[in-house]
């Protein structure tokens, strides 16, 4: 029988702590209702050791969680709570996360592998800001009054909370992705059943504890760690879930949308994969462009949906730039997340590790040239060093297939602006894109032409909580996160036509 909490030891920081390992429903940690012996085993990707086990939720557990969320929505949340109250609670939650940032960062690093300092200062730092940003929206959800006929009718819209939301989040930024989902949903008055990734559920469970501590009523946020094919599928197909939000692979995104269509036509938002390109033009600051290019594909060890995994360099500066790029990429130290020297951690799991190596092998096999990396490390841990391929073409898997999701970059060349744009857009994805140029008009032309939901000019990868984020094409055209735009995902518009002066003659 799965226990409801466990003690883990983090050797690197000499910390012992109790982590909740049950399912979080109605502000309490409980065992599975019908499969108490199903467990999820969590692995430290730097050492391959087991960290602990958590309860695995079943379809029945999802039912119970949805019922709890529905009850809360009808009684203590939804329209029963004011925006001011929601704002206060979200701010309190942000304060608690700030209080516990070190512990949360340590567990995030232990479970996901990313460097501790990055987890704390970036993942959690951004998370705190994100929740505060949405706390500020909670009392500002306004509808419109619309002039129809001043003598007889008052017409206005209410932006109601949409209801019970299923949220399915990935393993690459467990805490940050949790905040991106929870923030706007709670701000709008929705209740949540959250399914964290089965690879990295620990911090979601710790955050659930803070939800209770902050004072959210029971049932407002529920957390069910489970396999995607169990919990994720159950949420997408649930007849009493009003909306499902998913971040993950395009393959799974399709399944979520299908299940939503087949069940109750619930609202869907998807943030999926990418094969994002960067273009380096001859007028660019090459030093800076090389830095941003490295950040683009190596940050989070390439496990980023917007990873700039394809790079196209203008002919005239190709040789100079590539040698600059290689020398910079070499400087990144991939290692244990608790080692001060590590700029990046291991990949999150064996599955991901094997997948990335298959891509690297395919690159070689299909004739690309390895100019950096490409060597497997001996010993424990899912470490992959920065790997750069040149002499690529559009038929290679490393260029055209799905996202590699590792520190692997494919570098190509182009002559004209048109050719660059064409190469960049030659993908069924459209999540991010970057361009580097000092020609202002070129920057505007190219940023207009790139088919991506986020285009970075002379930068890459950096987001802001108040700027919308999402994809075009198969990266998830359905919905946007961040900024005021995320509120649309959690709002359902009701138009009210209030007649106060028109009499109807009958029959017409």
């Amino acid at each position, binding site marked *: 029988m799965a226990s409801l909490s466990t003690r883990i030891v983090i050797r690197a920081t000499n910390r012992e702590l109790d982590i909740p390992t049950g399912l979080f429903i109605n502000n309490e940690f409980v065992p599975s209702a019908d499969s108490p012996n199903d467990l999820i085993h969590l692995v430290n990707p730097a050492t391959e050791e087991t960290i602990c086990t958590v309860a695995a939720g079943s379809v029945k557990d999802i039912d119970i969680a949805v019922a709890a969320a529905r009850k809360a929505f009808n009684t203590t949340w939804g329209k029963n709570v004011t925006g001011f109250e929601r704002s206060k609670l979200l701010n309190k939650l942000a304060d608690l996360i700030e209080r516990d940032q070190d512990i949360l960062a340590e567990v995030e690093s232990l479970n996901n592998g990313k460097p501790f300092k990055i987890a704390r200062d970036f993942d959690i730092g951004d998370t705190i800001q994100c929740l505060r*940003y949405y706390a500020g*929206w909670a*009392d*500002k959800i*306004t509808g419109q009054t619309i002039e129809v006929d001043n003598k007889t009718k008052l017409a206005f819209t209410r932006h109601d909370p949409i209801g019970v939301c299923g949220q399915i989040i990935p393993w690459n930024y467990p805490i940050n992705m949790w905040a991106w989902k929870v923030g706007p949903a709670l701000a709008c008055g929705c209740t949540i059943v959250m399914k964290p990734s089965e690879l990295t559920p620990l911090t979601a469970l710790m955050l659930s504890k803070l939800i209770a501590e902050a004072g959210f009523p029971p049932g407002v946020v529920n957390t069910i760690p489970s396999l995607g094919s169990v919990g994720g599928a159950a949420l997408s197909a649930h007849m009493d879930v009003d909306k499902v939000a998913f971040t993950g692979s395009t393959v799974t995104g399709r399944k979520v949308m299908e299940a939503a269509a087949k069940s109750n036509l619930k609202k869907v938002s998807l943030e999926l994969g990418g094969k994002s390109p960067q273009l380096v033009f001859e007028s660019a600051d090459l030093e800076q462009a090389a830095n941003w290019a490295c950040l683009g594909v190596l940050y989070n060890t390439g496990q980023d949906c917007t990873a700039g995994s394809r790079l196209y360099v203008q002919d005239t500066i190709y040789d100079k730039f590539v040698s600059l790029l290689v020398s910079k990429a070499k400087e990144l130290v991939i290692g244990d997340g608790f080692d001060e020297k590590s700029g990046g951690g291991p990949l999150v799991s064996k599955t991901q590790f094997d997948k990335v190596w298959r891509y690297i092998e395919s690159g070689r096999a299909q004739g690309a040239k390895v100019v950096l990396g490409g060597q497997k490390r001996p010993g424990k841990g899912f470490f992959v060093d920065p790997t750069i391929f040149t002499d690529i073409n559009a038929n290679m898997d490393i260029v055209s297939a799905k996202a590699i999701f590792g520190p692997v970059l494919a570098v190509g060349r182009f002559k004209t602006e048109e050719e660059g744009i064409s190469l960049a857009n030659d993908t069924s994805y459209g999540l991010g894109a970057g361009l580097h140029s000092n020609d202002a008009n070129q920057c505007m032309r190219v940023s207009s032409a790139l088919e991506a939901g986020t285009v970075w000019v002379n930068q890459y990868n950096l987001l802001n909580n108040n700027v919308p984020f999402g994809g075009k094409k198969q990266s998830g055209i359905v919905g946007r996160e961040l900024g005021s735009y995320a509120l649309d995902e959690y709002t359902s518009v009701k138009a009210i036509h209030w007649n106060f002066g028109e009499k109807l003659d009958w029959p017409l």
Partner: protein
Amino acid sequence: MPSTFTHEFNAPAFKAKVSFNTGLFINGQFVDGSDNTTIDVINPTNGKVITSVSEGTPKDVDLAVDAAHAAFDTAWGLHTPGAQRSILMSKLVALMEKNADELAALEALDNGKTFNWARNIDVAGSIDCIRYYAGWADKITGQVQETTEDKLTYSRHEPIGVVGQIIPWNFPLLMMAWKIGPALACGNTVVLKPSEFTPLTAIRMCHLINEAGFPPGVVNVLTGYGNTTGNAISSHMRIEKVAFTGSTIVGRKIMEAAARSNLKNVTLELGGKSPNIIFDDADIEQAVNWAIFGIFWNHGQTCTAGSRIFVQEGIYDEFFKRFMEKTRSLKIGDPFAPDTFQGPQVSEIQFNRIMSYIESGKAAGAKVEIGGERHGSEGYFIKPTIFTNVDPSMKIVQEEIFGPVCVLIKFKDEEDVIKQANDTLYGLAAAVFTQDLNRALNTAHRLKAGTAWINCVNSFNSNVPFGGFKQSGIGRECGDYALTNYTAVKAVHVNLGHKM
């Protein structure tokens, strides 16, 4: 050296010793006024001096404007991103929450309103307001407009710069929050003049502003008189915007001064003579309760006071009987006693003014049904007063009294009352009591007022716009509407290829 105000509060609701510096707050420091003069702060329950605060002069306004400009050009304005402004404002909220009882006690001591009202409405409302605007600070967005493919056009919503704010004595802390909230959220720096009658909570807020960590010069507060300090602000060549809440008479002066100086942007929230209309089918008990709240809350010192109460023929007698009964039961006295409803008027000047309106009503032949005289022999207490038998030409019907004095008028029907209700230079608020929703909406829509209350009066929310029609004011406060007052819109046209 500016004096330190020390006071021992010893009321059941609040027992503490309070002590703080009372100088002008310029560039993060408390300093003497340039002329080294002071203004006495009077306790309105007994006319005695509580303390004195430094008096600001036009020279001090110059110093404050310099400090505000320096802060705007270096540490505030567009140099501090919205998210950072939001954090500082949230810190201020936390400090206000921590010191809520003290702020309420200071307000009650200085203004005369009861501690309970101060705590539950003034202080609570101020906290909500600043929290609300802290949330807007990182959400000031412009637009991108579609023109042609060879052009990028967008608008920036920039802070205006140094803004002047002049606030009244009826809700000292709340009016400060309504002003600095949106101004700071949008990135402006502030030169604020509280009323010379009620400076204490504004000065206490300056200490909290320092404690919260706002850069020096972002908020500057000058206690001083309207015709010197206030006038210096409205006519200052380096203040780009002035916001004023107070009487219509002074509002005119401010607008004139703005026009004569540098055409600064002006928003005004002025007086009112708001009608409270009660139809035959109103829930009588509720209508009476709200009518009491409408005119006697805050001692009638509310710009939206429902001072003209129109009651339809059919329920007039019943309403009158219950209204009188309820009015009789109101307790007047010590603001710190837990069951007091009404304290003193804020000052001797106000007291005299209200008493003279009462005399004019009597002289014009109106009937005093209750009150109409001073309460007690100490301080500025006036008994809740109801006049009947009035006609529209009387001063007590046309002019804003700003005291616990109302006129009760019988009316026939909808058309009749809407005409009477709109027969005023003012247009701040109006209230309608009826169970017939069609009539409620129709009437509310036809009343020329910036706020129409249906089955309530004097009900405010930080996120709902507030302001007047006609001579009750220009511009709106609260909600996102207030942001427009503190934003300068710049349109940027980027030519991408159109050759000339």
